[in-house]
């Protein structure tokens, strides 16, 4: 039986695609790990903010709605960090947020 050792410090590396549009054509040989970490941090922040908005929305919904599901993509870019995108191939991360009304809230 094979075993493996988890390295807590293993960096998560992101494969960034060139962003469409006008770009200056200097080279930026910055650390990929640092850029990846920055993009992921921004992605987590974006997901958190989206969750807050969903949470704020649910209290305004009529009682007959018991579930809210929000699906979106997050595209990771070297310059912008994280952008909301369409779900699917365009997204680096596909996110589904689900809220279900609990019995405790009805009381």
């Amino acid at each position, binding site marked *: 039986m094979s075993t493996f050792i988890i390295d807590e410090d293993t960096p998560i590396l992101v494969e960034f695609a060139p962003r469409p549009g006008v770009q200056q054509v*200097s080279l930026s040989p910055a650390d990929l790990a640092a850029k990846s970490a920055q993009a992921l941090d921004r992605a987590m922040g974006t997901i958190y903010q989206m969750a807050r908005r969903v949470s704020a929305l649910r209290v305004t919904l009529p009682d007959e709605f018991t579930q809210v599901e929000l699906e979106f993509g997050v595209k990771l870019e070297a310059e912008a960090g994280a952008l909301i995108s369409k779900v699917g191939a365009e997204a680096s991360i596909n996110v589904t947020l689900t809220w279900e009304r609990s019995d405790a809230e009805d009381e």
Partner: protein
Amino acid sequence: MSNEQPNVRLQNLRDFTVQIRRTADDAIVGTGIAVTMDGQVVTCAHVARAAGVEPRDANGDEIGVYFPQARGGEEKTRRATVACCFPQHDDDVVLLQLTEGAAPLAPEQIAVLGRAEASWFHPFRSYGYRRLENYIAGHAHGMILGCVPPPLGRNVQAEPVQLESQQINQGMSGAGVLDIERNLIVGIVSETWFPDLSTKDRDTAWAVNARVLTFDPLNLPVQDEPLPLSKAPEPKTDIEEARASGTTPRPRWRNGLDEMTCWRPSVATGPTRSAA
């Protein structure tokens, strides 16, 4: 397709093209061109920033400049500082000055500059340090289309020059645009368009008009007259020498017939039979 005659030579882009490097790790961040024997190099302002130096606040910070074509055993790895830029305008060029000594190049290896206004729809060549895996540099070619209004919010002294080329990519910033009809460097590569899924305008790029290099405080010399194309010596074959070097003897077949002397050609009627 080049209109170049076979016995002429253009300015050699590789002679005056240099690597712009970040001093922290010697990484190549862009391209530059040597413009004077005194050690002045032109590159894009954003290339200087990529090297870690803000042109408008340089404070003598150094940028690496590497001269691949240095001659005579001269040191290829040099340092430079920002000599001047345009503090009030957004024209994307800076003038670097080597910190020690003159450029390690011969006079014929220095770029000759010209204004781009007479270059519309001329073919061009370029050379710069765009990375293709382990290939650190590459040539480019295309067409100089003409000036366009600058991007919104950008305050420039000369309109950007639009180029058409498949090879302008990251690393080419600061490369010279050589008009191959006028034999002059008429622009400095600065930006390119990365197309979306439609691929419209996929070969579009922009350069800074070399005309801005004449403005204060850079004050570099440029010329309007096309640079004469240097003539390469024509090959000369001495025909007499070639004949005198001798010909290979015709092979004689051992069992072949001797020449038939009974047949002698006649001027008027052709061969006639004569007594053997």
